[in-house]
């Protein structure tokens, strides 16, 4: 055990020593900001789950059945998430970490290295899932007026389920890594996991859950759910945890304890099995992972020039950016996810029951179209955060090549800007035009939406590149995660304020123009001044949104030590 603790110490010490860094004055502020958003999100989950469970329980006749059905589904989802998260984290921690060569050279038995790494991996992959599902279970306790034993048991069974998930995942990985290289499994698994999620998401969306607001449809659904009395599969650990929680919720303490102990014993079996298997298979898998990946499609250098009309340094940086982007398999799944997001987004507008609304359809269509500019803006922010914001950090340690090359950082950043601006511009315009066609908006609203997006996209992309350059993390193993840093948060907040400001500035003038257009009225001189003033303000704001962040990023990047 002493060796395992020693192996875990670097992790504790690196965390502790973060506070010792010089120039770390903003750390407290960052922690407070992240803490605030974390607590806000936690509180949101608690309020929503409390209301849903209270509502379900209150349905006469089969409230309990529905509430327990929901609990069973939540636990199954919780278990699946833990398995998915554990597989990805254990692949990284146990097979792909940079310090594994150092660890394996140490005079420590391999199973102890495995245990230390596995503990780290389990904690890393489970803590967030646990923290953000606890408010749901607490809501159950409050709604069902459960005693203290429920809460104590709840924490115990959640931890047990985490250990079981970690055990199942790691045993699976240890076997598979012997046949397929770890990095390839990771990519394949992300792809499969994402596809599975999207299929479920599409299935759910195309079922049109909004129809449940219709009392007739809802009563049919309730009747169907009531008929679903078949128990959850007995072989699933989430079912044992469900049985334990259900028993303690309804006051059957002994029965609850029985199921908890049953789960605990299986967790023990998983831990022992994983350690025994690691002694035979873990090192072999690590060795296999050390060998270089074979390139699937190899071709000779063609000398093809891309794109020929640009200056040479632009061509060099653009082709490098595009090649490295598409050859990184982790980006593929993200592109896949965006395609799904676009389909769902457009479908949502197609499924809107506008004819049932109490407001006149033409007003509602155009109001939605106007609000849709803001909504598309937020979709744009999300995609920019995922792709454009990490663009500078994705240079990683090779950034010295840019700094030592005879090019200006200003040009380098503007090339990054255009690489991401073009696809994001096309994507957002497609979103806005397609949804406007579905909404059958007026010509005026169509033009306004297209022009607004034309102004918003450069601003948001510029903020992505600019803030990404101002707060880069060249040491990050996964640059996409840099958006969760202080700079990423700043980027998202400033972008949200920018998009919101554009919508607010335009709201009243657009309303007046629209009404004048519909009713055939003529605007007064004052109204014209207001309209022109607002659009000039939006235009100026958009120009500033493009120029200022790029300059800010360039200045900070220039001073950066690498």
């Amino acid at each position, binding site marked *: 055990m002493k060796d395992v603790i020693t192996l875990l110490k670097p992790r504790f010490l690196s965390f502790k020593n973060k506070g010792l860094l*010089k*120039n770390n004055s903003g750390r407290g502020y960052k922690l407070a900001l992240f803490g605030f958003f974390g607590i806000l999100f936690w509180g949101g989950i608690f309020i929503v789950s409390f209301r849903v469970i209270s509502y379900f329980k209150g349905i006469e006749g089969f409230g309990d059945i529905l509430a327990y059905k929901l609990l069973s589904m939540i636990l199954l989802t919780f278990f699946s998430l833990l398995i998915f998260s554990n597989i990805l984290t254990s692949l990284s921690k146990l097979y792909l970490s940079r310090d594994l060569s150092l660890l394996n050279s140490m005079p420590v038995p391999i199973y102890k290295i495995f245990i230390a790494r596995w503990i780290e991996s389990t904690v890393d992959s489970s803590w967030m899932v646990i923290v953000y599902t606890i408010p749901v279970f607490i809501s159950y306790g409050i709604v069902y007026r459960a005693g203290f034993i429920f809460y104590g048991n709840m924490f115990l069974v959640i931890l047990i389920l985490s250990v079981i998930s970690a055990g199942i995942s790691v045993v699976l990985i240890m076997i598979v890594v012997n046949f397929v290289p770890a990095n390839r499994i990771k990519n394949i698994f992300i792809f499969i996991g994402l596809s599975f999620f999207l299929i479920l998401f599409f299935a759910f969306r195309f079922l049109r859950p909004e129809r449940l607001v219709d009392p007739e449809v809802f009563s049919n659904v309730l009747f169907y759910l009531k008929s679903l009395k078949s128990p959850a599969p007995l072989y699933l650990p989430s079912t044992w945890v469900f049985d334990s929680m259900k028993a303690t919720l309804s006051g059957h303490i002994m029965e609850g304890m029985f199921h908890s102990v049953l789960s605990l014993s299986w967790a023990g079996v998983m831990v022992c099995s994983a350690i025994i298997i690691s002694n035979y298979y873990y090192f072999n898998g690590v060795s296999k992972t050390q060998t*270089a*990946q*074979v*390139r699937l499609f*190899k*071709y*000779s*250098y063609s*000398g093809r020039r891309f794109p020929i009309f640009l200056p*040479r*340094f632009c*061509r*060099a*940086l653009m*082709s*490098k950016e595009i*090649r*490295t982007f598409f*050859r*990184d398999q982790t980006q593929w799944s993200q592109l896949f996810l965006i395609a799904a997001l676009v389909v769902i987004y457009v479908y949502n507008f197609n499924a809107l029951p506008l004819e049932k609304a109490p407001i006149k359809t033409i007003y509602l269509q155009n109001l939605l179209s106007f609000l849709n500019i803001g909504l598309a803006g937020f979709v744009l922010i999300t995609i920019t955060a995922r792709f454009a914001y990490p663009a500078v950090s994705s240079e*990683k*340690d*090779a950034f*010295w*090549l840019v*700094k*030592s*090359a*005879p*090019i*200006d950082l200003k040009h380098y950043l503007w090339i990054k800007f255009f690489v991401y601006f073009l696809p994001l511009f096309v994507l957002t315009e497609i979103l806005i035009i397609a949804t406007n066609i579905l909404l059958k908006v007026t010509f005026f609203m169509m033009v306004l939406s297209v022009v607004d997006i034309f102004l918003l996209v450069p601003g948001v992309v510029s903020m992505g590149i600019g803030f990404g350059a101002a707060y880069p993390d060249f040491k990050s193993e996964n640059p996409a995660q840099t958006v969760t840093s202080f700079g990423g948060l700043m980027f998202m907040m400033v972008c949200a304020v920018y998009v919101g400001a554009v919508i607010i500035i335009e709201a009243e003038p657009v309303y007046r123009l629209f009404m004048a257009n519909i009713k055939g009225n003529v605007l007064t001189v004052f109204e014209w001044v207001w309209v022109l003033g607002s659009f000039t303000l939006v235009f100026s704001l958009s120009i500033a949104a493009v120029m200022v962040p790029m300059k800010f990023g360039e200045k900070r990047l*220039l*001073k950066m*030590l*690498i």
Partner: protein
Amino acid sequence: MIELINLTKKYNDFTAVNNLNLVVEKGEIFGFIGPNGAGKTTTINMMGGVLAPTSGFVMICGINIQNHPKKAKSKIGYIPDRPYLYEKLTGMEFLKFISDLYGVDENNFLYRSREKLRLFSLSEWADDLIESYSHGMKQRLIMAAALLHDPEVIIVDEPMVGLDPLVINMVKSLFKQLAKNGVTIFMSTHTLKVAEDICDRIGIIHKGSLVATGTAEDLKSNIQNKSADLEEIFIKLTEE
């Protein structure tokens, strides 16, 4: 030609390089040695334009690198101590990338890149992704890339780390040949034997300051021991 004029770099209260003054003539190979943390890599990074000095200047072929970075950098072949590259490019694509940034004649690119790849024994790996290269292969690729645009000045940090004896020998001969052709080479190294073998002059840096410069003979007379080798001189001049 390289000139360092009152070059200073401070990180908060810590002075990494302190008022360095040095001239390396055209066609000269200058060896820069010193203990760990003496300020060698910081100096080299400032010379390569990767790091801005706190005060002082770096002149490359008479051009101030702070005032005219593009012009000065186009004359440099910069080779850092750690071979970090774009892992998702192939060796050949990386050379093309560098040749486009440095403006190597496009019509000659294929010939020149193949010649460099052959020189550093990388021809058969040219179309493989850099992520599959070993440390030594990456180091060789960086050297090939640094020589692609015929630099007038080569700034190299620990050139022999990760290279096998055959390549070390080849690099030594290559540097001597380049210097003969008028290329100025500034080289930091811990391998004192290499410094002794190929450098015209050697500078010893300690705690950010240049404590001695000159030929190996000059340094020997500096410590008043004609029979001392470079290792003894180094220890004598840098001991606490």
